[in-house]
C-alpha cells in the first residue's frame, strides 16, 4: 500500500514554484509519481497549476479544495507527463490537493493561493448556492470574473483596454475565458476587441472587432458571433452640414477561429427605420443589447435571439436564412412585434427561451425587464408560442426593496426550477425560488456592478 505524501507549497507574493522531486533526495518515489510542482499563477493568484510525472503512462486527475470537494477532469490520454489547472479556489487560502492516478497511487500537497487585487469590490453574500457565476466587474475596475457559490471571487483578470467588459464566457476549449472589451456609452469604440485569456491569465490574444456592442456567443465550431453597431446613411440631407444623416442600427458579426469576419445579419434585414420606430431614437434605432444562440431552435438547426432595447422586443433570427419571407421569423415585444406580451416589458436585456420540446419554439420566455415597472426592474416570464399573437405572464420576481437596473441585467433558469436574476450594474445577483423567496444573494459595495452572467455547476464543464 502506497502512502500519500503531503507537501507544502507556498505563495510568496508573486509566484511560487515548488518542486517536490529531489526535495528529500529520493527522486522517483515508490508510488511512481515524481517532479511534482504546484505553481500559483503570477497573473491570477487563485489559479494553481499542478504538474507531475509518472514512471508509466497513466491518466490522472487532481482532487482539491478546502475539503477535497473539487476535482479536475480525468486526463483523456495516458502519459508520463501530467498537468492540471486548479480552478475555483478563493484567494489567500491554504488548499490541499491530491494527485490521483488511474493505478490508484496518489500524492498530496498544500498550496497557499495569493491575493486578488484590492481594486475588486467587496462582496457580501447571504444564503446558499451551488453554481459558479461567470460574469464581469464594472465600475472602479473592469474585467472578467468568476464568483464561487459562496460569493467569493475565485478568478479575476483585470482588463487593460480602457473599455468596459460586459460579457465573459468560459470558452469551449476548456482552457480559456472569452470576453469583450467595448464601449456602449455614447459613441461605440473603433478599438473594441474580443479577448481570449488563458485560465491562468498568462496568455492573452485579441481579435479587433470595431464597434462591438454588449454581447457575443461562442458557437460549437469555436467561431464567435458578436453584436456590433452598424451605421447606414439615412438618405436625407441634414442641411447645414450637407452630410447625410446616419442611422445607428446593429449587426451580427461571425468571427472564425482564424479571425475572418463575416456579417451574418443586419437590423435592415428585418426592419425598416421608416416604419419600425421604437423609443429613444436619439441614442440609436434598434440598439441591440443582448444576444443568445439557441441551438435547439428551428428543429435543431439553431437560431440567434437578439434583444433590441429601443424596440423593447426580442427577435428570432434563424441561423439558416429562410428561402422566403422575413429574415426574422418572429419578434416578441412591442415595436415590430409578431407576438406581444399581455404585461409589457421595457428595454429588456438578457432573456432565455425555455423550450417545452425540441421541435419548435413553444415554451416560456424568461426576460430581465429593466423598466417595465418604471424605476424598478424585475425578472418576468411569459408562456410563449410564436404562433400565438399574445404571450401571457406566468411568473415574475420583483426584489424588495425594489432595484432599478438602468443598464444591462440577466436571468437564468436553473435545472431545479430556481432562477438567478442578475441586477448587473446595480451590483446584486439573486437566486430565487419559484415562490419568489431569495435563496442566495450577493451585493457589491457602492461603485461597482456586474455585467451579464452565466451559471455553471463546474468550471470544468463545457459551456
Amino acid at each position, binding site marked *: 500500500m502506497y502512502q500519500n505524501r503531503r507537501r507544502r507549497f507556498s505563495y510568496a507574493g508573486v509566484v511560487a514554484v515548488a518542486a517536490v522531486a529531489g526535495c528529500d533526495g529520493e527522486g522517483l518515489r515508490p508510488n511512481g509519481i515524481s517532479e511534482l510542482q504546484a505553481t500559483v499563477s503570477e497573473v491570477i493568484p487563485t489559479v494553481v497549476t499542478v504538474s507531475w510525472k509518472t514512471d508509466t503512462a497513466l491518466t490522472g486527475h487532481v482532487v482539491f479544495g478546502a475539503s477535497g470537494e473539487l476535482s479536475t477532469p480525468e486526463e483523456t490520454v495516458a502519459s508520463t507527463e501530467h498537468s492540471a489547472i486548479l480552478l475555483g479556489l478563493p484567494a489567500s487560502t491554504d488548499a490541499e490537493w491530491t494527485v490521483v492516478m488511474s493505478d490508484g497511487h496518489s500524492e498530496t500537497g498544500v498550496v497557499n493561493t495569493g491575493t486578488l487585487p484590492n481594486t475588486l469590490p467587496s462582496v457580501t453574500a447571504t444564503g446558499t448556492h451551488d453554481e459558479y457565476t461567470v460574469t464581469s466587474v464594472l465600475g472602479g475596475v473592469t474585467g472578467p470574473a468568476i464568483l464561487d457559490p459562496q460569493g467569493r471571487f475565485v478568478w479575476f483578470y483585470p482588463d487593460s483596454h480602457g473599455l468596459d467588459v460586459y460579457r465573459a464566457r468560459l470558452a469551449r476549449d476548456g482552457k480559456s475565458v472569452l470576453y469583450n472589451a467595448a464601449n*456602449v456609452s455614447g459613441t461605440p469604440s473603433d478599438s473594441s476587441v474580443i479577448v481570449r485569456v488563458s485560465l491562468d491569465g498568462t496568455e492573452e490574444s485579441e481579435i479587433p472587432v470595431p464597434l462591438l456592442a454588449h454581447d457575443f456567443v461562442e458557437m460549437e465550431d469555436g467561431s464567435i458571433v458578436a453584436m456590433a453597431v452598424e451605421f447606414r446613411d439615412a438618405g436625407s440631407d441634414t442641411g447645414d452640414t450637407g452630410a447625410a444623416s446616419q442611422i445607428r442600427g446593429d449587426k451580427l458579426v461571425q468571427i472564425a477561429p482564424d479571425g475572418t469576419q463575416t456579417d451574418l445579419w443586419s437590423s435592415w434585414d428585418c426592419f425598416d427605420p421608416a416604419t419600425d420606430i421604437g423609443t429613444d431614437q436619439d441614442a440609436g434605432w434598434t440598439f441591440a443589447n443582448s444576444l443568445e444562440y439557441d441551438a435547439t431552435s428551428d428543429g435543431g438547426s439553431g437560431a440567434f435571439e437578439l434583444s433590441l432595447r429601443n424596440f423593447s422586443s426580442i427577435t428570432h433570427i434563424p441561423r439558416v436564412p429562410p428561402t422566403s419571407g422575413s429574415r426574422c421569423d418572429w419578434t416578441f415585444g412591442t415595436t415590430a412585434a409578431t407576438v406581444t406580451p399581455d404585461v409589457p416589458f421595457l428595454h429588456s436585456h438578457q432573456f432565455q427561451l425555455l423550450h417545452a420540446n425540441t421541435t419548435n419554439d413553444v415554451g416560456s420566455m424568461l426576460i430581465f425587464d429593466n423598466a417595465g415597472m418604471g424605476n424598478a426592474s424585475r425578472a418576468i416570464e411569459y408562456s410563449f408560442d410564436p404562433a400565438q399573437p399574445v404571450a401571457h405572464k406566468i411568473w415574475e420576481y420583483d426584489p424588495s426593496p425594489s432595484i432599478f437596473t*438602468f443598464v444591462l441585467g440577466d436571468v437564468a433558469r436553473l435545472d431545479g426550477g430556481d432562477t438567478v436574476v442578475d441586477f448587473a450594474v*446595480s451590483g446584486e445577483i439573486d437566486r430565487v425560488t419559484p415562490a419568489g423567496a431569495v435563496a442566495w444573494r450577493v451585493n457589491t459595495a*457602492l*461603485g461597482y*456592478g456586474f455585467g451579464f452572467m452565466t451559471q455553471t455547476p463546474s468550471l470544468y464543464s463545457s459551456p
Partner: protein
Amino acid sequence: MRTEIALGLLFSGCSGTGAGADSVPTGPITLADANNYHFSGSLNVPVVTTASARDVAIDWGQVTQDIQCHTVDPAADIDTVGLVRFGALTQAQVQAGLSSNDLQQADMSGYVQYQNDAAGTSTTLSAMSFFGTPVDVTSEYVQGGGTYLLLLATGTTPGVGARTLAFLDPEDASTNTAVTVASGCGVLQFTADLHSLSSAPVGADLSVDWSGVTADGQGNPIDDAKIDGLLLGYYEGQTVADIEGDFLNLESRATTLYSLPLTGGTSADLTLATAGTQVFTGFSGDGLWMLALTCSRCYNPAPPFLTLLTPPTGA
C-alpha cells in the same frame, strides 16, 4: 489615564513605554485593534432645493476646498460630476452610509455622470448620461423619486476621488433651476482620538502585519479588500494633540511622509515605502512616527487604521 501618560512619554521621545509597547518584537510590526485610533465623524451634506422634473444648471465654480478642507481648482481638479439616486434611502441614511462606507450598489436606483473634459465649472442635468443612456429629467428627476446625491470627483473612476458632495432635492413648489455647489470645507465633522490607542512596538524587522486587525477606526468591521495604501509619517517636534487637532492635514503636517500603494493582502514591507525619491530605510529621530492604512475608494477620507509606532530605543 495610563495610556495617555504612556503616550505622552512616547511623544516626548521616550520610546517603548506605552501599553503594548513594552516589548520589542522580534518579527514584523504586528498590528491589532488595540493599536487603532478612534475616529468619529459624520457628513453634513448641504441640500439644494430645485424645481422638479426640469433641467437644472449645476455650477461648481465656488468649490475651492474639498471636504478635507484641501484646496481645489474647480476647473482643473473636478473631472467627473455624478448624480446618484437612492430609491429607498433618506438623506440621513445616505449620509450615515457614506460615513461608514457601507452603502451597497443596489441601494442606488440610478446614476448619471458628466465628464468635465473641457475643464469647465458648470453643466446641466440633461448633459449627464451613463452607458449611453441620458437622463430623462422630466421622469427621472422628480419630487418623491428618491434621494439625489451630487458628487464632484477628481478622476474618472466611479466611486473614487470624491472631493465634495451635495443633495439635490427636487420639489414641485420650487422654481429654482440653478444649483451652485458650495465649497466642501465643513461638510465633514469629526473627532480623532489618538490618545487612547496603544502604540505599536517596532523591532528590527521593517515589515508590518495587520491580519489581526478586525475593526476600523469607527468600530466597524475592517474590510481588508478596501485597503489600498499605507502611509508612514514622521512628525518632528509635534505632539499627538497637534495631529488630532489638525487631523485632516495629517499628510501635509508630516515632516517626512512615506507612502506605499498596496495591491492586497494584510502585510507590507516598509522598506518599499517612498517619499519622493527617498526610500524608507528605518526609524530615526525624536519625533512621532505614525502608520496609517488608507482607502482611496472610501467616501469617508478617514484612514480605516492609524496608529503610532514605538521605534526601538536608540533608533
